[in-house]
């Protein structure tokens, strides 16, 4: 399974007992396979990599997932299409709102339901709050991987403010349960919106201090600049998405398709050209401020009116909704046959698409940098395994 082309060259056993290999340039290297994960301090969730090492250099990596496969997609057999929003949302604790949004987008498209303008704006606002939540959490994990404990706690302290805004408007901090087919279950008051604006202003000021540390600290730069480079051509070929793709210079952001209220907002995708770990960090930090701007825009343009439309009958047909989750392009394929139970729900998550790109960046890297590379794709294994 592992391509160890370099292992086919002559090898011998060193007096230390290690296997050593004579390379093409007559140098003698030690080839070993090191298991990385599924439990590792830098991994919040289980993913396993078999790293083929030549001394300290990784020459190949083999991913292994499937430790927490739950088979959520199969539950369409037991939950009707209205109830299934709750299942879709529980795919992950970070992208939960996005999963419910992608699912209802697909079902609404099949049923030709046009949601109200207020629904669209509120969904956009919550999606951007989720992005803020995700990126601040990721920055905290990155700081933790560096060993910057105070910075980690500072990032998560800021994230708490986002969770407070979510709790204020939806009642939930992780799972919001506000989306439903045809609209929303909860509306927000003008006071809540005012409070969000005030908190976002405060958050922006505090984030500047934190993000300047990430972008300017010498230790951070030495660990990330030039590490894990991925060219735009390879990123495209390998099907990468989200900040991972945009950090390689590819200007693709599904929000530009204009789903929900994004078509009425002004924004440009955040990109970087370097394609390394630092560029990925830079893109996510840029997206933090972009999300704050988008939240202000949605609140400024928030229309009045109802938050739901009547839903009649059952869906019949198929549709593939695509949305830009915090981690990248997520795909929601829904197929229905006119009964209240769907025949298929498929969720292709961003991390699933980014794994081949991750393997590509790891090849040729130093062992000590592998953890950083895994972290900079912002892997979400709960989503990946569903």
């Amino acid at each position: 399974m592992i391509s160890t082309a370099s292992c086919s060259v002559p090898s011998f056993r060193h007096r230390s007992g290690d296997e050593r290999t004579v390379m093409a340039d007559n140098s003698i290297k030690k080839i070993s396979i090191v298991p990385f994960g599924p439990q590792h301090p830098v991994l919040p969730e289980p993913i396993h990599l078999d790293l083929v090492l030549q001394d300290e250099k990784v020459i190949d990596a083999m991913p292994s997932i499937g430790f927490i496969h739950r088979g959520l997609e199969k539950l369409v057999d037991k939950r009707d299409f209205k109830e299934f929003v709750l299942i879709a949302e529980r795919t992950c604790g970070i992208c939960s709102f996005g999963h419910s949004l992608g699912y209802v987008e697909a079902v609404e498209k099949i049923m030709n339901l046009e949601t109200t303008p207020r629904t669209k704006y509120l969904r956009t606002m919550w999606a951007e709050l989720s992005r803020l939540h995700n990126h601040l959490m990721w920055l905290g994990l990155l700081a933790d991987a560096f060993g910057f404990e105070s910075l980690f706690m500072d990032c998560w302290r800021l994230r708490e403010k986002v969770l407070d805004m979510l709790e204020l408007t939806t009642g939930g901090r992780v799972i919001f349960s506000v989306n439903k087919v045809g609209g929303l279950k909860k509306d927000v008051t003008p006071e809540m919106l005012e409070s969000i604006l005030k908190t976002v202003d405060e958050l922006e000021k505090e984030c500047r201090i934190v993000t300047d540390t990430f972008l300017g600290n010498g230790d951070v730069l030495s660990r990330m600049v030039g590490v894990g480079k991925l060219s735009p051509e390879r990123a495209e070929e390998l099907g990468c998405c989200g900040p991972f793709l945009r950090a390689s210079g590819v200007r693709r952001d599904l929000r530009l398709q204009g789903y929900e209220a994004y078509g009425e907002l002004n924004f440009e995708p955040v990109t970087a050209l370097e394609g390394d770990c630092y560029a990925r960090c830079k893109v996510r930090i840029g997206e933090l401020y972009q999300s704050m701007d988008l939240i202000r825009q949605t609140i400024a343009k928030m229309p009045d009116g109802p938050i739901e439309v009547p839903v009649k009958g059952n869906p019949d047909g198929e549709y593939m909704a695509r949305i830009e989750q915090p981690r990248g392009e997520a795909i929601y394929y829904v197929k229905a046959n006119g009964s209240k139970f769907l025949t298929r729900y498929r969720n292709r998550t961003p991390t699933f698409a980014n794994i081949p790109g991750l393997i590509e960046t790891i090849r040729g890297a130093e062992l000590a940098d592998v953890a950083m590379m895994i972290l900079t794709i912002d892997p979400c294994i709960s989503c990946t395994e569903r």
Partner: protein
Amino acid sequence: MADMNEKLAAAGKTFADVASTKKPAPAVQEGTLVRETGTPDMPVEEIEIRELLDAVTRIRHEEWRLIQICASKVAEDSYEILYTFGRAYDIRNLRLCVHGNDRISSITSIYEVAYLYENEIHDLYGIEIDMMNYDFNGKLFRTVIPTPFR
């Protein structure tokens, strides 16, 4: 072949008679696939198993990237496999039907990243896929029940 000729002779026919009555397979020409279904929002091109590699190669040459592959159960022992490709913000889909113990070819020789999707389909639905560049041999997903979506 001798047995077949004897049977045909007993039936008063020759091999040429049988061959001429056999329905020819639809020719897959450049840029045209067998039929199109789906909706304007989700166009789907239906293909046969034997046309898969030709169709995917053509799509690759047109610079589409692979977005996803998924299987769906349509009836007992009958499945659809949906291949989705993207170019900028556009998508296109290929769909083929698999019955019983049909085996399909891996497209990893054309799109190297297809191995995760193909292993997923194999592990969840038990559909056999030949010539994958990385074959996890049913161990991509560690499920308690083998092929739980079958």
